[in-house]
């Protein structure tokens, strides 16, 4: 019987640490690898694992590495022949090919990035620090930073986060609602992960199913294809203290209980977004029709600002549904009359909706669900940058007030997007290329993701980007020439190893 080793998996993979409202991410480079190994030996004991559910007085640490960082620590010489990390991780986020896949072009080009780009310092280690409030976070940070010098690492950048009211992101929408339920992390499903979990046992009824094989997120366990995902293995003799587990073939599995962490700093142009929405919601008098603007924005996102899915409440917001994640698009909204195919949440997770009209039937809806579930990620991002304030000086996410705030244009705000997956190519990059940036998603013609899509190449590409269509009862509503509301400002692929693997690294002497 295969079960998840939850106490070896780092805690942030399992939980978002919602009780810990303060967080920062520290980017480090390794100056002296033997000192760093000693630091890691000690750090391994302070890492929060998946068993511990933190309370608001806790401080939590998690750690991840880039390929360059792991190379510094000697992993290249330890590999068991060709059994290395995936090529996406090894190459990193910035290659010519990957720019096409991720849509990191024009204003999002890595050459303009603040970190992780070709002109920035190389990053080796990412330290994720979480605490119940900012004071506790600063305590935690200074404790940790105090050990950097003796640990042979130096800080490249500290990235701040800001907890926004009602768990919103900066455009004003509640975020982080749709998440996969990981088989093996759910108590009621103490399932043998070696068995096919996509079969009826875990089917939640109908064609909608949100329970995903653990191997889609954590290496060392069967994935959606009932195969063990590619995982880096190391030579037996490098593990002198016999720390690592062996895999199904008897090789030492360095990747086990680890996960690939995708980190992107997404800067959001709040003023641009709401001005666009308002400009396209005007009555003939020139006045803005708020019912139209709220609805247009909700159609673009796929959820109302409260978080309520527009497919379940198509005419107005219903805050009682703000955390609703257990729903499908088939059969009630199969054509996208309520939640457009092109909307952000529908294209980043199409759930059980067949992507072609001629496949609209129950069997195809089940197939669509199985297919969509091969491209899931666990999201753990947090907003950064101060929100606007209302007249009483309290943070506000109301579009009118955000637009009135003269500083909205100047203040840099956005999302530190973090997600976990076991196969960057099939999960994160697929979502980014085949769903988000694909103007031909489903049966569309020229509609990239209205929020994230790379639309600035529209002229060059015969205008195939930048439209947004919301089907209606009779005629569709189409808005054109979407602007670029989000720019990438930094990013890297990390690997977040299991805790035993970190201990192994700390003892890796070649």
């Amino acid at each position, binding site marked *: 019987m295969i079960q998840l080793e939850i106490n070896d998996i780092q805690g942030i993979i399992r939980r978002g640490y919602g009780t810990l409202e303060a967080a920062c991410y520290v980017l480090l480079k390794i100056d002296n690898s033997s000192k760093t190994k000693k630091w890691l030996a000690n750090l391994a004991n302070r890492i929060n694992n998946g068993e511990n559910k933190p309370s608001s007085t806790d401080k939590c640490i998690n750690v991840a590495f880039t390929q360059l960082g792991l190379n510094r620590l000697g992993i290249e010489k330890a590999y068991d022949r060709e059994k290395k990390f995936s*090529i996406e991780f090894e190459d990193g986020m910035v290659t010519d090919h990957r720019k*096409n*896949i991720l849509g990191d072009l024009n204003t999002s080009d890595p050459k303009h990035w603040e970190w992780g780009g070709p002109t920035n310092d190389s990053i080796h280690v990412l330290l994720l620090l979480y605490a119940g409030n900012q004071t506790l976070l600063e305590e935690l940070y200074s404790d940790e930073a105090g050990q950097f010098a003796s640990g042979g690492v130096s800080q490249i950048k500290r990235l701040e986060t800001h907890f926004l009211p009602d768990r919103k992101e900066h455009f004003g929408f509640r975020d982080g609602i749709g998440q996969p339920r990981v088989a093996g992390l759910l108590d009621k499903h103490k399932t043998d992960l070696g068995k096919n979990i996509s079969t009826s046992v875990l089917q939640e009824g109908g064609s909608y199913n949100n329970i995903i094989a653990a191997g889609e997120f954590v290496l060392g366990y069967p994935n959606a294809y009932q195969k063990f995902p590619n995982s880096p293995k190391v030579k037996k003799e490098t593990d002198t203290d016999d720390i690592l587990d062996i895999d199904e073939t008897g090789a030492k599995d360095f990747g086990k209980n680890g996960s690939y962490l995708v980190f992107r700093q997404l800067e959001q142009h709040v003023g641009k977004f709401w001005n666009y929405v308002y400009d396209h919601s005007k009555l003939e008098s020139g006045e803005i029709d708020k019912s139209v603007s709220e609805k247009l924005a909700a159609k673009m996102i796929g959820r109302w600002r409260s978080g309520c899915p527009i497919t379940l409440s198509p005419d107005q917001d219903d805050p009682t549904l703000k955390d609703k994640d257990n729903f499908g698009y088939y059969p009630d909204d199969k054509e996208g009359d309520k939640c457009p195919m092109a909307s952000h949440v529908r294209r980043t997770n199409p759930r059980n909706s067949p992507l072609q009209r001629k496949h609209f039937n129950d069997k195809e809806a089940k197939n669509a669900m199985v297919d969509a579930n*091969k491209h899931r990620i666990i999201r753990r991002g947090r907003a950064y940058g101060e929100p606007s304030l209302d007249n009483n000086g309290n943070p506000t996410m109301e579009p009118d007030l955000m637009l009135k705030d003269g500083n909205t244009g100047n203040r840099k705000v956005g999302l530190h997007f973090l997600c976990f997956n076991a196969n960057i190519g099939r999960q994160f990059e697929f979502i980014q290329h085949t769903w988000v940036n*694909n103007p031909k998603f489903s049966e569309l013609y020229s509609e990239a993701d209205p929020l994230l899509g790379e639309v600035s190449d529209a002229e060059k590409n015969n205008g195939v980007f930048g439209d947004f269509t919301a089907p209606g009862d009779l*005629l569709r509503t189409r808005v054109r020439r979407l602007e670029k509301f989000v720019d990438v400002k930094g990013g890297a692929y990390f690997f977040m190893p299991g805790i035993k693997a970190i201990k192994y690294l700390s003892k890796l002497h070649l």
Partner: protein
Amino acid sequence: MNDFVSQGALSMLAKIRPGSIEELRGILKDLDQTFENNEKAIFPFRDIRSIHFARFVIVDKSFTEEATFRNLNEPFLMFSTNYDGSENDHLHEIVEVASDGMDQIFFHCYEYPNSPSKKDRFRFLKKIRATYGAFHVGAQGMSVARIQKEGKLREFIQDFIDQNSNTKGWSDVNDPQLIREDIKDQVRSSSEFNWSIESPDRVPIGWKLFRRTGWKSGIEMIVRLPLALVFWLMIRRKEKTDKIYPYTRYDQRAKDHTAREDKVVQNEMSLLVDIKKGFRRRFLLKTVFAGIETLARYVFTKGELGGIPTIHFARWVIVDEGRALMFMSNYGSSWESYLGDFIDKASKGLTGVWSNTVLYPRTRWLLWGGSKDEERFKCWARAQQVTTDVWYTAYSNLTVKNIIQNKQIREGLAAGRMSKQEATEWLKLF
């Protein structure tokens, strides 16, 4: 314009003279970078109106059982096209329009005549053409000209709807039939688009029955089947011990061709792998091809090949005197999603073909398993991918689904009176 034209696939293999490969590669690289923007480009693809897609690939290596490439004894240039109408008309057009390019390129190949006449060039192309194993067309019967024109027609109507959805009071009257009539009037009054009011030609009955060579493949499959079954049972015993691709991560070599890949909207792929040794393997492979060919002509006629909706054209060709199998595809999605469809949607058909080639992931009964070993399969495909030197597409911003939807828009426009329900359905296409 004929509204219905059948599509063909030409694969032309010209053996390259020794020592000429590098120079030829240079010519092709230059062509690849210039043909869209430079009027003096030696091979003006866009002026050859019968071409949907075309590519030049220098084939000098094939992927072997040792998970590495072997050099071919006789490297060749693969010039492949997907075209409208008859093969001879198509070849004549190439000869007419691209004689300079042909001379410069095929100069480096055996048997290309010195100072050739048009007739010589035509004969040369005829001579080097190879037959394909199996061939799939996404949007069947749709000519390049029709695809392009109907694409523009849709945009014209979309703009008209944008301009009028508020001012004409369409939403007040709530009458789909009336809106459709308004649209028809607009199209009728446009000299650029009034052709579309006429119904497109019907598909000829003869074509429906014979579907080019589809019927021949059907007969071939039936004739081959009994012996194929015997071979299948014999080979089947070996499938547990055949070598499989050892890695589940991409080969470094993949980086060569990934740089030009995954752009919006269309992509291409050329794969080349050794066929497993033995007469039985080749016999089986040809039987599977006859089966796929028959299905592609008679069953997969609605834009999908075994459930994969993104393929414009794809074909397999046996090359290198029966030793290697080449796969060439023009598709409208990302590499990752295309390969994902190979696994999730069309696994059995592809496994039926590729289980006869070296290092294919472990199969069961030669049809099951195989590509279902997802990471290994993708890495195997990546490892055998060869770089396409020149690639041309006649309509880079359309997918198969777009083409078929444009066709429905045009047919709905040209149709007679529609019921309220029908008119509503038609308006949903916009």
